[in-house]
């Protein structure tokens, strides 16, 4: 398992990304920035911390893609289960980090940031089985979609946005768990067909 962890660059990539996430959540706090929306001409307040999950999600994509393809495709060990465990571990760590920051500093958005890691990871996994590495665009495009069309005015974010919802928002938590569950299911069962080079 040590070799599998090293192959996945768990220490050099995932741990660093979680560190960046922790620092981002602590530093960005509840700072907002006015960003332009497509639905109205004016700018809407968007939390800086919405982008904090992206380094973790990108690092997960890098990690999962760091595979000894030929051996893992014919392995007797359950590598996909190990990968699923890795994903769950990273998500759980992100949630724990968010909870700890909330307890220590009272930051109201910390737990939500952990939840957003879960949601965007699930989204990544769902798209990844179909397009491979470029799937990293999906979480990024989701953040942009939230910025561009997520604010319906009157101080309300649309129900589908998930990311800007407060920590205790039940539908958002449910959406995150659902996304991760579906993503893990797809990851565990769907195999991408990649044609070999001509020979």
């Amino acid at each position: 398992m040590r070799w599998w962890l090293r192959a996945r660059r768990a220490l050099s990539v995932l741990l660093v990304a979680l560190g960046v996430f922790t620092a981002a959540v602590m530093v960005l706090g509840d700072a907002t920035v006015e960003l332009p929306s497509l639905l109205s001409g004016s700018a809407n307040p968007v939390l800086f911390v919405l982008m904090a999950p992206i380094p973790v999600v990108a690092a997960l994509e890098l990690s999962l893609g760091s595979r000894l393809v030929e051996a893992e495709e014919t392995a007797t060990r359950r590598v996909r289960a190990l990968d699923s465990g890795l994903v769950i571990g990273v998500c759980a760590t992100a949630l724990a980090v968010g909870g700890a920051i909330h307890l220590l500093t009272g930051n109201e958005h910390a737990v939500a940031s952990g939840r957003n890691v879960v949601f965007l990871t699930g989204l990544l996994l769902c798209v990844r089985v179909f397009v491979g590495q470029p799937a990293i665009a999906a979480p990024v495009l989701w953040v942009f979609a939230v910025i561009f069309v997520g604010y319906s005015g009157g101080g309300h974010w649309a129900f589908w946005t998930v990311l800007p919802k407060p920590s205790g928002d039940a539908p958002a938590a449910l959406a995150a768990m659902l996304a991760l569950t579906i993503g893990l299911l797809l990851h565990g069962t769907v195999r991408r067909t990649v044609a070999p080079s001509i020979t």
Partner: protein
Amino acid sequence: MTLQLRACTYAYRPWARPVLSGLDYRLPPGVTVLLGPNGAGKSTLLRLAAGVTRPRAGSVSLDDLPSQARAYRGAVAWMPQHITAMTALTAREQVAYTGWLKGMNRADAWTASATALARVDLADEADTRARRLSGGQLRRVGVAAALVHGARVLLLDEPTAGMDPRQRRVFRDVLATLTDEVTVLLSTHDVADLAEESDHVTVLEAGRIRYTGSTEGFLSHAPADAVAGRRAEAAYTALSETTA
């Protein structure tokens, strides 16, 4: 143990032309060389035999074991055309990791990795990062990874590509030391080098078997005036012209 493909059809996309169509193939014991032009389906056949992909129709089995069974994967080793060079692993770690993935425990995999690298004359590079190895060295890592867990069936895709003559000699010596219980199927473009040192030859063309049989039978297709040492090449050319 006999590896068999029954009526296998495979296409990389549902709407694409099948690479293999209704292929029946029984891998004979010993060393079999798989020949064929580019695009014939050699890599596809090896991938099906390795259990990496499933046929759209038909079946692949090792005796009674279907290709998706864990025991099947434990008995079969696959070396693809392109060997991944892991960023974070040394040559020995990469080989040991393969052994671990094939069910070996950590200690056995670590010990076996050293032995496997020594067999392919790469012991000196055991602690070199896989990323820093040359193409030929990486292919030897691939061969070592195929040997590490003592598989009963070795499926090797272009194992000698990028190797110099000395390294190819080492590889042939490795083949020679394999016991009678190990079946090898290797694809190659090195007709002259390997065909005459194998037990069987299979020629694949456009997804169909053009010839499968003993090496002597294959070589008998060479014209009488074929130059000694190039009979395999001549036999292959003659077979291709016959079917064209």
